[in-house]
Each structure stands twice: as structure tokens, then as C-alpha cells.
């Protein structure tokens, strides 16, 4: 190793500056450009005491949020004002940030963390979190978040600083981007039906960033265990994306559409889990691998490589990378399974469709969580073999079934 020359030093600085610009523009500047006016308007409405007063008056209604969205223009309140296009305010901001976007899912996932611990504890014949928050530890995730916020953020001396910091931010951005493509129902969505005709394709495209970001974090940590974990994650995510796409392709063939709304509408007669049960199995298995959950948690296999690519991340960085982002991903993938195979928000009319969607997603999440308590971790060579041989084979067989069903006009 020789000392870096002045030119190398200069190049390094230029690259760093370009990197920060590239990072800050999509995360901060672009949202401000697009939603700046909406944010200002929302703030103005927030300070309007009259609107809050009306909101409180309506609080007795249990389906307040849905009703407000359904019956637009009943008066100047926050929800209607931010939602109603005619009021001069674009509803996109509200949909992305609050409901059914980031805040709603973040709160849901916070609670999912508690639920998973309690579920595992039940199988293990113990209590799980119990004392934080009096009632069987429901505030346990809040305590964890508060603690993580107060932790010292250590950036290793030999780490590549900009990349090291960028990875949690980018992961959060991508999780939020994935969320936008999961509609809760025909009326509660982030991306409206008119522009969702290529919804699944965009979802897959966004998902393709994950391996690169993970490898970036692993490399920037400059730790041997991180490096091995990053390579494992790269192998695993890339090999399981293919059977995953192929499984979805069966549904796409049956409905001739990439639009989640169209796919759900096509399941009004029969849920696709019946004709496409192989695809559902392949999709669920690949989902486990994509989520890095046991039995496929090789990138963070703690007894082998400490914490894999997350070894050097602590504090809130870790909170985002291991707490928030995987649970948002879990919600997205379970929601996608619901849309593709379980008929989305379709269900008897005694419950609103949004509730049906959340219930079904919740069932899928429980199934995914249960795989954790009954299975050991598998080895990387077995993992790659399962992905490239068995799952792809099953997915192709399923594709033929789908084409056959379509050709003979059964569905």
C-alpha cells in the first residue's frame, strides 16, 4: 500500500461530493419540489383550529377515516382538505406519508415486532415481553425504538463513511417506494388505478435495488463478517428473485395484466390460490428467502458470521436496517401474496374491503412468522440448489398450467 497522491485525494473528494448530491437530490430535493406546496397547505390547515374541532366532533364514528374519504366535501377538516383534489390540494402527499402509506405501515410493523416475539414465546412455552407497558408488553417495540434513538452511532474508523451512512437511508427510501404499489382497496391506494397498469413491473424493478444496497453496506463496513454476509445476501436475493418473478408470471398470464387492481378484480369468481397453488408455494418460499427469514436467514446467520452484513451497524442505523425495513418488506410481500393469490380485498360485505385486506395480509404474515420457530437455518449451497433447480422447475411447470388454463378457456 502506498500513500495516496494529491490527484487521488482530489478524485476521492469529487466522488464523495457527487455521491452526496446524488443521494440528497432524490431523498430531499425532489420531494420538496413535488410536494412543497402541499406540505405548506397541510401545515396551514393544521393550525386552523376550526378543522380540528370538527374532527373531534366526528370522533364517535368508528370508520371515521373511511367515511371522510368516501364523503368528500362535508366541511373543512384535515382529512378532506388534504385529500380533496378540488380543494386545490393534491391528495398524493397524504396518501404517501400517512395513510395507507408510510406512517400507517410503520406503526403496523412496530406492533408486528411485538406480535412476532409473543408468537415465538407461545411456541417456546414462555411469556415473551411482559412488563413494558403493563398489558403483556405491548409497548416493548416503543421501548426498543426509544433506546435505539438514544444510542451512540459508531462509524468504524476504516469504514467508507458516505456509503456506510447512505445504506440505511436508501433502504428506508426503497421500503417506502415498495409500499406505494400495494393498494388497500379500490378506494384506498397510493398509486391510483389509472396509473397502476404496470404496477407489478415497477415493484420488481424497485426490488432489484436491494442486493446492490446490501453489498454496498457490506463493503463499506470493511469487516470480514460483513463482507461474507454481503456476498451471501447477493447470492441469495438474486437467485430467489427469478423463481419469484416466474411464480407471479402465472397469475399475469391468467389475468393478462400487470395491474394489481385488475388482478384482484379477476379473482371475483375464484381465488388464484386454487388453480395456481404451485405458484403460491413457490412465491411463499421465495418470499421467505427475499425477507432473509429463518430458514433462509443466511446473510445475518449469527452463529456463523456474527450479524452478517449488519455487523458494524448499531443504534438507529440498525433500527432502520433490521427493525423497520424488513418489517415493511414483510408487509409488502404479504400484501402482494394477498393480492395475487387470496383475492385481495374481496370478501363478504359485512366488513369494509380494507379490513378484509388487512386481515388476509395478517394471516400470511403469521404463516411466514411461524416458519421461524420450526426450522433451522440452511446452508448456502443447499439454498442455491433449492432456488435454481427445484423452485425454478416448479415455477415453469406452473407457468405451463397457467397457459393451459388460459388456452382452454377455463379461467
Amino acid at each position, binding site marked *: 500500500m502506498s500513500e495516496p497522491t494529491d490527484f487521488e485525494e482530489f478524485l476521492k473528494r469529487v466522488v464523495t461530493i457527487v455521491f452526496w448530491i446524488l443521494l440528497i437530490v432524490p431523498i430531499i430535493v425532489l420531494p420538496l419540489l413535488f410536494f412543497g406546496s402541499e406540505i405548506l397547505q397541510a401545515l396551514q390547515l393544521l393550525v386552523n383550529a376550526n378543522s380540528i374541532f370538527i374532527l373531534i366532533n366526528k370522533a364517535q364514528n368508528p370508520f371515521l377515516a373511511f367515511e371522510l374519504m368516501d364523503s368528500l366535501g362535508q366541511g373543512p377538516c384535515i382529512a378532506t382538505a388534504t385529500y380533496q383534489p378540488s380543494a386545490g390540494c393534491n391528495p398524493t402527499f397524504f396518501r404517501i406519508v400517512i395513510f395507507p402509506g408510510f406512517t400507517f405501515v410503520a406503526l403496523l410493523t412496530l406492533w408486528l415486532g411485538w406480535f412476532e416475539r409473543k408468537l415465538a414465546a407461545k411456541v417456546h412455552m414462555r411469556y415473551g415481553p411482559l412488563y413494558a407497558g403493563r398489558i403483556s408488553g405491548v409497548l416493548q417495540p416503543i421501548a426498543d425504538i426509544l433506546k435505539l434513538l438514544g444510542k451512540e452511532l459508531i462509524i468504524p474508523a476504516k469504514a467508507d463513511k458516505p456509503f456506510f451512512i447512505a445504506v440505511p437511508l436508501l433502504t428506508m427510501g426503497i421500503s417506502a417506494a415498495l409500499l406505494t404499489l400495494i393498494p388497500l382497496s379500490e378506494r384506498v391506494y397510493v398509486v391510483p388505478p389509472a396509473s397502476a397498469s404496470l404496477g407489478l413491473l415497477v415493484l420488481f424493478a424497485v426490488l432489484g435495488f436491494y442486493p446492490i444496497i446490501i453489498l454496498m453496506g457490506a463493503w463499506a463496513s470493511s469487516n470480514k463478517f460483513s463482507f461474507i454476509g454481503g456476498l451471501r445476501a447477493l447470492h441469495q436475493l438474486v437467485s430467489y428473485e427469478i423463481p419469484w418473478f416466474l411464480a407471479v408470471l402465472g397469475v399475469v398470464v391468467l389475468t393478462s395484466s400487470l395491474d394489481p387492481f385488475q388482478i384482484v378484480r379477476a379473482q371475483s369468481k375464484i381465488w388464484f390460490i386454487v388453480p395456481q397453488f404451485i405458484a403460491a408455494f413457490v412465491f411463499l418460499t421465495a418470499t421467505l428467502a427475499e425477507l432473509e427469514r429463518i430458514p433462509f436467514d443466511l446473510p445475518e446467520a449469527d452463529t456463523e458470521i456474527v450479524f452478517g452484513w449488519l455487523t458494524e451497524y448499531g443504534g438507529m442505523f440498525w433500527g432502520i436496517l433490521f427493525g423497520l425495513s424488513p418489517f415493511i418488506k414483510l408487509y409488502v410481500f404479504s400484501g402482494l401474496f394477498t393480492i395475487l393469490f387470496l383475492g385481495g380485498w374481496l370478501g363478504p360485505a359485512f366488513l369494509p374491503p380494507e379490513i378484509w385486506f388487512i386481515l388476509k395480509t395478517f394471516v400470511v404474515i403469521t404463516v411466514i412468522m411461524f416458519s421461524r420457530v420450526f426450522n*433451522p437455518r440452511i446452508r448456502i449451497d443447499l439454498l442455491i440448489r433449492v432456488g435454481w433447480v427445484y423452485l425454478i422447475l416448479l415455477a415453469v411447470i406452473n407457468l405451463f398450467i397457467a397457459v393451459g388454463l388460459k388456452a382452454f378457456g377455463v379461467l
Partner: protein
Amino acid sequence: MTSVARSLPFPTEVIVGDKLSISIGPQHPGSGHFRIIVVLEGDIVSEAIPDPGYVHRGAEKMCEFRNFVQNVPMLERTTLPDANGIIFPYILAVEELMGIQAPPRAQYLRIISAELNRIVSHLYWLGIYGVFLGHSTMFLWPMGDRELFMDLIQTVGGTRVTPSYIIPGGARNDLPDNFKDKALKAFGYFERRLKEYDRIFFSNPLVLKRSQGVGVLKRSEAIALGITGPNLRGSGLKSDTRKDEPYSMYETLDFDIPSYPDGDCWARGMVRFHELYWSMQIIKQAVEKMPSGPFRSRLPLLTARAPAGEAVARTEAARGCMSYYVVSDGTSKPYRVRVSVPSFRNMIGIPYLLKGGHLADVPAIYWSLDYWPVEADK
């Protein structure tokens, strides 16, 4: 004192050649108080160097400064999961030197306490083996059921892990009256649980994938390397000190030695799994056959002297053949105590078996040998 800590050297990284070498331990979720320096070529381990000594407390030297009886509590702390098993041969050797004979009831009491500790030790092994493979339920179930046997040990010896129950001349106290009912109740429950363990862990297809054909130790290699205990029996050899050289009253009891010919991690695990069952059978028989009478010949004095001489004694502890070589020079303190522990003998298997395996198999192979670093370091 402060200067001792200040003068300690800063630990340096071990680099072997130009290959990627990682230290598994001493702070690592996949190791105990022990370090394995693993040299990697891709995902394949090309060399593994064990680095013990993080818990070396000099028990052998300290034995020379303590009386024969004072050594009992000190030596049993080298293997807390198997405290009665590790102290058993020391007592046999000291009794041989002193010329004491334990009464028959004490012989059975020793068998009961040693077998209870074997169950506890194997359950601890099973729990850690489960979590090393990433199976969280298999950590918590054995740890929960282990408490039942902990209660039994507490009933017999008074404390959870350090009973000092076996002493020169017999056992420290008699069995309480309620022991038999309590033990039979626990065994009845645990025999049902063993089936569930088999269903969730030993028959789990992913566990089979992870453990079958991994870390294969052939029969001839096992003998040459001096491997002992369940690891030896996992390589197809039916060798157990309880049958080879019956001590105490093991010759009066009817039990089987489980043995599997495969020699892989799964076989070693299954041997221990079956030993759980057979240990319970041994305790049941011992409780039935135990004669009434004194439970110790006489309480040994703290300054009891042993005539000059030497003795070698061995028993089957949970991890394998445990032997002591005790030399006495006629005083009340031993002249030399050599503690030959099964973990130290099995350590040679770690570099041998890890070589050529995957990185992911390192914790599985390491713990399938049931290597307890505190015991090996002494």
C-alpha cells in the same frame, strides 16, 4: 493488581498466509470461551486452528495446594453441566489411594447423581446445538425441560449445579423420601417429550440436510485420534467405560449403549438423544435395586492422609471417558493430580473435521463434538 491488567498485551489479529482468515471466538455467537481461527477459500474451510486457554485457571497446580477433600468442589467447577460426572473418577482414585470402600447404597447414590447430571448435560448440549443450527425452539424446549432434572439434582444434592455430592467414602447425604415419586413423574413426562423432540428436530428434513454427511469421523480415525464418549459411539464403536470397566454398581444394571455407524453430526446427536432415554432407565433401576444401609463409610477428615502411591481411575462422564491420575507422597495434599478431560481429547477432532467443510458447518461440527472449553482448559 491494577498493574496486572495494564500490563496485558493488546490482542493481535491472526493472519494465515494471504487467505481470508476469520476468528470465530472468543466473542462470537457461534463459539464459547474458545477461538477457532478459520482460514477460508471461498465458502470452504481450508484450515482451522483451535486456540484454547481463555479459561485456563490452573486447576492441576491448585490441586497440589489443597487437601484431598478440598479439591472436590474446586475440580467440579471445571465442568458445571456435568459436576457429578467429572468428580466421580477423582473420588475413585482417592479412595483407591486411601484404601476406603464406599458402602453399596452409596454406590447406587453415585450412579443416580451421575446419570442425572448426564441428562442435564446432554439437554444443555441439545439446546445449544439447536440454536447453533438456528432452531430457536430447540434451544428453549430442552432448557425448559432441563429444569425438571435440575430440580431432581437439587432434591438429591442440595444445589443446582455444584452439589459436591460424591465424596471420598460415599455420598454426602441420603436420598430424600419423595425422590422416587418425583423422579418417576418427571421421567414419564420427559419420555413423552422425547417423541416431540424427535418430530420437531431430529426428523426435521432441514436438520437432516444440515447434519447428515457433515463432519464425518470414520471408525479408524476416531480410534487413532483418541476421540471419546458419544463422539466415539457415533462412529460405530460400542465403547463405554460403564460396560468396558464397570465401576460402582453398573454391572448390576441392565442398559444398552447406543451406537450409530455413520460418524456424522446427526449420528453423534442421536447417540446423545438415546442416552437421555437410557440414563432414565438406569436411574429407575438404581432406585429399585438400592439396598438400605449407610450411605457413607465415614466422613473424611479435612486432613486425611493418603499413603504414598499413585492411582489411575476413569469413569464415563457425559462427554466421554473422564480419567484422573493422582500421585500421593504420604501427606494430606496430593503430590500431583492430572485431570484428563474428554473435551481436551475431543479437541483434536475440531481442526480435523472442520477442514474441507463449509463455513456454515463450523458451528454444527464444533458443537456436535460437545466441546466444553472450560473443561478442556482446566
